[in-house]
């Protein structure tokens, strides 16, 4: 299990957190103007890559805040953590 450095609470055990899938997929502002394919792209398509991945995490059993994490899925190395709305740091 990882140790995750919550940007609001500090280092905590992974069991306090919930993974929320790929990050930086913005909900379309005008969904009704999208074709079925475009909407499906937003709704279903996720990369799920082996390697460096940008993810959303939630401190579900803590401050309940969402934040972003850059994680290497091949060895679970956490490369960076940053708040929602912030630009991802260069790694």
């Amino acid at each position, binding site marked *: *299990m990882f*140790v995750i450095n919550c940007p609001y609470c500090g280092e905590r055990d992974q069991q306090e957190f919930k993974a929320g899938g790929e990050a930086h997929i913005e*909900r379309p502002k005008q969904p*009704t103007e999208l074709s*079925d394919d475009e*909407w499906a792209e937003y709704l279903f398509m996720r990369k799920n890559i082996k390697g460096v991945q940008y993810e959303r995490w939630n401190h579900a059993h803590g401050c309940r805040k*969402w934040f972003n994490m850059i994680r290497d899925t091949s*060895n*679970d190395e956490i490369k960076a953590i940053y708040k*929602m709305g912030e630009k991802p740091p260069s790694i």
Partner: protein
Amino acid sequence: MSENLRVKSSQYIDETTRVSFKFNGTTYYGFKGDTLASALLANNVHLVGRSFKYHRPRGIMTSGSEEPNAIVQINPNTNRTEPNVRATEVEIYEGMEASSQNCWPSVNFDIGGINNFLSPLLPAGFYYKTFMWPASFWEKYEYFIRHSAGLGKSPTLKDPDIYDHRNIHCDVLVVGAGISGILAAKNAAKNNYKTLLLDEKNELGGSTIYENNESNKIDNKISSEWLKKEIEELKNIKNLEIKTRTSVAAYHQYNYLLARENLTDHLEKKDKTNKIRQRLLKIRAKKVILATGALERPMVFNNNDRPGIMLSSAIKKYSDFYGVACGRKIIFFTNNDSAYESALSLNDKGIKVEAVVDIRKQSETNLEKRVIDAGIKIYWEHTVVDTSGYKRLNNVSIMKLSNDGTSVTGNKISISCDCLGVAGGWTPAVHLYTQSGSKLAFDEDKKIFIPNKNNSDQISVGSCCGDFKLDEILKNLNEKLKNFLDINKTDFENITVNNDQEISKRNIWLLPSDKALGKTKPFVDYQNDATAKDIKLALREGFRSIEHVKRYTTTGMGTDQGKLGNMHALGIIADTAGVKMGELGTTTFRPPYTPLTFGTIVGRNVGKFFDIFRRTPMNDWHVEQKAEFENVGQWKRAWYYPINGETMHQAVQRESKAARESSGILDASTLGKIDIQGSDASEFLNRVYTNAWSKLGIGKCRYGLMLNEDGMVYDDGVTTRLGENHYLMTTTTGGAANVLGKLEDYLQTEWPELDVYLTSVTDQFATASLCGPNSKKILKKIIPDLDLSDENFPHMSFKEAKIGSIVCRIMRISFTGEQSFEINVQSSYGKDLWEKCIEAGKEFNITPYGTETMHLLRAEKGFIIVGQDTDGTMTPIDLQMDWIVSKKKYDFIGKRSLYRSDTMREDRKQLVGLLTDDPKVVLEEGAQIVSELNKNPVEMLGHVTSSYFSPNLNKSIALAVVRGGKDMMGKKLFIPMEDKTINVTVSNPVFFDQTNERLNA
């Protein structure tokens, strides 16, 4: 009958404390400090078990956790019985009993032994190949296969012991307390690292602690003497915690390790009670030093599995540590120098060593000279080609090896003996290392896998990283520690080390015999009876991946996880397939390193601590009324209230009638309640619910349906506008936490610009839901000054009132179709409110009802329950709830998905009502629905989601999802059951009071 093979008093065995124990019904004696294995060997008992497949007699082979053969049932038929315990690990205590496994009727006469003679008929994959046809017979075969297989018996009585968990955080964790681990821990702790040192044995010091070899010296002291002094010094070091009898089971990423601390298994029965038996340590370490040592390898030759054939290092440990001779005439068989050390050590204690058989070419080192001087004959370049003795080794046959090591020549020499010590070299114990995600590399020279690429802040030291000689171990340890701990010097920097230098090894994975391979039994995996033949067969049949060969031959799949034989399996595959071992890789080492008890894993989370449960403030009242309960999420909810021995059906029928005829009361405290505040609260609700919220007046309530972004119904509930910028949302009982999580997600990540704050208030309020035609009269009695007229307090509205001095929020909303009032008070007044309602309702026959009646009443009205009538594939349109989906709103969660081609299909499963042709027949929930009877296969149109006998309609009613059901009104369908087919007619899902007259009656 027992003989005494004690050779010399050992300082690790307390010879003043004699311990009696039983093995297979016979009483034996050992000493305090003995393992079951050492005590049995002292009594000259080698035969302890039978192998898994051929039921061959097997003896003790090792002295540690890698033991494949000597696995026993401890304290059979008692509440403390434990199967598959390694006799080499378990310490004896007064009154202990143990028995052999996998044999019947006894280990001496085992009927399954017939398999040994049938073995030519039982190659690898035998069961897979044989019991395939006819497929329908599998159930018959399985019964017999399950009975003839299997190891120990799992306990059937309640476990009397207590188990515990403990979290530990440390700077440095050292795994293994051999010489490397001890020095590492000592230097870490001395340099202000908070250090934890763990070892699976009961004594510190690993194999060095009983090393009395005159030529292995540190600072001119015999290595064991030197180490004892070091161990003594550990006691005075702060920052250092030492735990023995503690085995690390798993090494996860981020230096998170799980270890089992054994606290009472070595104690007498009377000392076990009311103590913690085993504790799971959950260790989070900043740095980890692995000093897990190495396991000696056996060698693969014909009949290499007989009782009396042991690892050379184990024989040495039994004599030097436990003071036990493993035989009276011992032969060593080796490919390296370590057997010579064992031979000399035994010779010193007066144990007769007949010969050393060495597959290497002759050489002369100091070690070999001393063996010759001791009068022990060495057979250079010879190999064992066969052994004999069914239940105990009595003879080995050796022959000269050819130059290339693939065949044997010359005359067969037969030597009688009662014990054969096999030394096949050493395998670093890298199990934990690879579990951590770190990667191995193959050392072609030493023929071992060694740590290569670390995945966390860790190092491997000592023989687990491939250093086998004392001087190289200590030299490398010194350098590694300085670097890893970031210190200038260690306290053993300037020691001098002397030890014998080794001549080169000669590695032959599969030793030849004078017989063809097909006629021999060279075991690779002892416990599962996989031989070199089986591995070659697997390769011939086309298996290439090591993981596939493993599963096909079962090599390495026993309780020992192939700690001894896996390297040979790899070597034989590499040789046969002509590939390099490094390219082949290893099978995956999975946790746990040694088996864990279920007790250790669950710790204190047993009985009522098994799972969290939540109870409402009215719970005590329900218990007093002898309500039956059901679990809803984590809540314990009153299910129904049986009176005078009523069945559930009878109670529910009575409760349902009463609620509609006069009055009923339901504990609705478990519904999720979310307090929503902020200047954008209305806009927020507009976005999360399918219907419009902007125009909802203050003091009004509205039902809302929440979708997922994929358009499927997620949750529902009534939300009340308490003020301009203040709402109270209710959710389903089970969905409360998820809804809050989802709303927070949107607020924080998609719409951070909205000024909205969410607070869960589920636990802060208790809710009594009063319903039925007399509910208004009852409420009037409780709160006389509240105007309950339909004009002042209409359906779907809210009032704040006081009961005495207690503030309460009352919503006039209905989940039953009757007039009803949900009264919310601060939780601590919940039971008081409930009792007041019951008291006031007496004259109206107020009837408490549980969740089952609630479900029935709402089904009569065709109200859905999210999660029962929906399953994550139902849109509001599928539920025939088009009325709640706003056409005007530009957007809400899930809106776009309602216009996807798939969600607009006409033939989706849609919610309908079903009426059985025979009104007495109640459908089974989950039953499948078809439209044709004489078709095979027939298309399943859908299934029944809710089904009840309605006492108010006096007929059976059901809700169902049916493909294209919307257009099937009045159509006849069929529900085929096991014994009959039930005819049904599709109907409106609202069965009762279709015009909602009763809400305002």
